[in-house]
């Protein structure tokens, strides 16, 4: 199949299908120590123009997930399973040459660190125009005008001059705007933002997030916002998927997740956000322990070793994804937060002073539940 076939025609595309339908994808890395199950069976669908937040701590597989969906991982020593349906077309089976027509033009990515994601020896303008020439076959003048328009749309002052500058002449926030402008250049339908504000000052973070949101609304573009910061996704996503140990442990519409979370991990993440109403010097609620070893994950629930609710059953049986009753809300837990079973489990653990996995549980800590 030639490259043109895929770009020109809508071969295999179904306009009625959801923009992105991820079905049970698994990404395993073969290493000398063993197989790392970085992504271990993740499914979700994303409609046009919607935003999905993917939240999880370091090593939960959230970055690997976005790279797996885009097909950016090396082929060697990587096991990929499952389907990624983009407008009904399974892109997980396409090779690199075929993906090249989709990368940039249909889906693109904003990276974490604007210091390293721009080529230090190429002028900003050239970096923006590259993909315009490649995907849209623009003329030189058109590309120039588009680049200027793109830079001003991401609120960069004096865009004409910036085109002639090198990345090191810009500040971090400015560079991230350039990175966003490059990612948006060909009008993708799907944007991956992989921790887009992690490397930036807190003051600039809000601006960049607002910018992403605004661009997304204007372009009716779907976005997957990957972050470890629940505060980042709170006001800006339609749905949130909480990842732990390569799996989605809870997924729900954003408002539901914040008000009626079911998974103890989600609850623990919420608890670890500092609150403005807390008195000064309040100690942050941390989640004890570390994420599990992805080579030899614990039997049963992957979060059980750190969970206050853990019962004997959690250590043996792996909870499946359960429906919470509300549309789009599901979770993996036998003793979900906010249910009688959960409350009972916590009360049992409080009485014993520890959970089944050995996490200390005190009465006061469980009191407010």
């Amino acid at each position: 199949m030639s490259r043109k076939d895929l770009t020109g025609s809508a071969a295999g595309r179904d306009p009625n299908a959801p923009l992105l339908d991820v079905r049970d994808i698994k990404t395993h890395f073969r290493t000398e120590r063993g197989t790392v199950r970085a992504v271990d069976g993740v499914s979700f669908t994303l409609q046009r123009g919607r935003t999905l937040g993917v939240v999880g701590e370091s090593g939960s597989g959230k970055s690997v997930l976005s790279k797996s969906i885009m097909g950016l991982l090396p082929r060697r020593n990587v096991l990929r399973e499952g389907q990624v349906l983009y407008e009904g077309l399974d892109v997980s089976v396409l090779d690199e040459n075929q993906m090249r027509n989709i990368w940039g033009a249909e889906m693109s990515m904003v990276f974490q660190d604007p210091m390293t994601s721009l080529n230090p020896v190429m002028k900003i303008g050239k970096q923006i125009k590259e993909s315009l020439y490649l995907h849209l076959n623009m003329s030189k003048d058109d590309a120039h005008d588009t680049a200027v328009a793109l830079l001003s749309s991401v609120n960069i002052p004096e865009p004409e001059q910036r085109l002639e500058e090198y990345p090191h002449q810009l500040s971090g926030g400015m560079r991230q705007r350039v990175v966003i402008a490059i990612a948006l250049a060909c009008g993708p339908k799907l944007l991956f933002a992989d921790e887009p504000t992690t490397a930036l000052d807190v003051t600039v973070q809000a601006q960049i997030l607002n910018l992403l949101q605004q661009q997304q609304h204007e372009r009716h573009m779907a976005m997957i916002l990957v972050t470890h910061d629940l505060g980042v996704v709170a006001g800006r996503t339609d749905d949130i998927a909480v990842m732990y140990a390569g799996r989605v442990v809870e997924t729900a519409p954003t408002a539901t997740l914040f008000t009626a979370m079911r998974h103890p991990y989600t609850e623990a993440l919420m608890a670890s956000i500092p609150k403005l109403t807390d008195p000064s010097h309040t100690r942050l609620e941390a989640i004890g322990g570390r994420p599990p070893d992805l080579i030899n994950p614990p039997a049963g629930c992957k979060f059980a070793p750190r969970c206050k609710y853990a019962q004997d059953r959690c250590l043996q049986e792996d909870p499946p994804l359960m429906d919470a009753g509300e549309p789009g809300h599901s979770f993996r837990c036998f003793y979900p937060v906010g249910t009688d079973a959960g409350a009972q489990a916590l009360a049992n653990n409080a009485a014993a002073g520890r959970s089944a996995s050995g996490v200390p549980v005190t009465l006061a800590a469980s009191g407010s539940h």
Partner: protein
Amino acid sequence: MPEHSPEHPGNQAPGSNYFPSGDFLESPNLATELTQIADVDAYNLEALHNLDPDQVPEDAVKKRLGWTFWIAAAWIFLIVALALLAPLLEKLGMPDPTQPVCTSRDCSLQPPLSGYGLMGTDKLRRDIFARVIWGARVSILVGVAAVIFGIFFGSIIGIIAGFFKGKVQTVLMGAMDVLLAFPALLLAMSIVTFLDDKSVKTIVLAIGIVAIPPVARLVRASTLVFAEREFVLAARTLGASNGRVITKEILPNAVLPIVSFGIIGVAVAIVAEGALAFLGLSIPPPDPTWGSMINEGRATLETAPWVTLMPCLVLFLTVLSLNLAGDRLREYFDIREGAL
């Protein structure tokens, strides 16, 4: 409970405060206020940034090349200029390098500045200065051409090996290791002997082939580093092909080490040509090259040391200048990771 907050935060995540999308911006809570404060701060920061370029006096941070560089550069310039202008100088009265300056025996082995030219004469009554100038043409031509040859093929091999890795790399770098295992001079000598053609072309080819493996290793190393950088991944997510990534993203970044290697490489190639000429494997006499001149002076080293010393001195100064200038340029253009 010293480590615990008065209210449990788990219950505190209030739905209304975290309502999605646009509502977040209008809702009258502290988070919104904070966002607005942050926005103003960021605006100010940006304003500051926009001022910057004019505010910082450029001289204060300007790096300098230093006087050693300029002396070295001046010497290189002088030698290159003299070599280029040799035919013109001859018309202006410089003696023919292959002909005796006079017919009498008196003018053989005259010391420098004795009325027989700037650097004296050799045994065959030829003007050493003229021979050094004409010899410079060969040395510089061979030095530059061999290095360009080596860089051209070495870069291609190195970048392909570093980018595609795997079997391609094993084969290419294995071949380079085989080339490196030969003593360089021996390899160059055998190439010249094998081709049995002592022309500039052959010398360039011989030294150029010897120069390929070190360049390939250097370029492969840079490629390995830059291929892992995020901007290469970013280019790929925009649909750039391998060829584009190599030529537009990696090569421009690898050019700097190649260039600084090249300048020092010219010095090494000039010495190599000198060694070949000393062994009689360069341009055949009577055409002068620095190496063959040094060789010719050996017999009279005790009575007339200048015959050997003059080309030696010029060779020494040229190689030293190239090394100094090359090193200094590399430092000057060396951009630390932090500055990127």
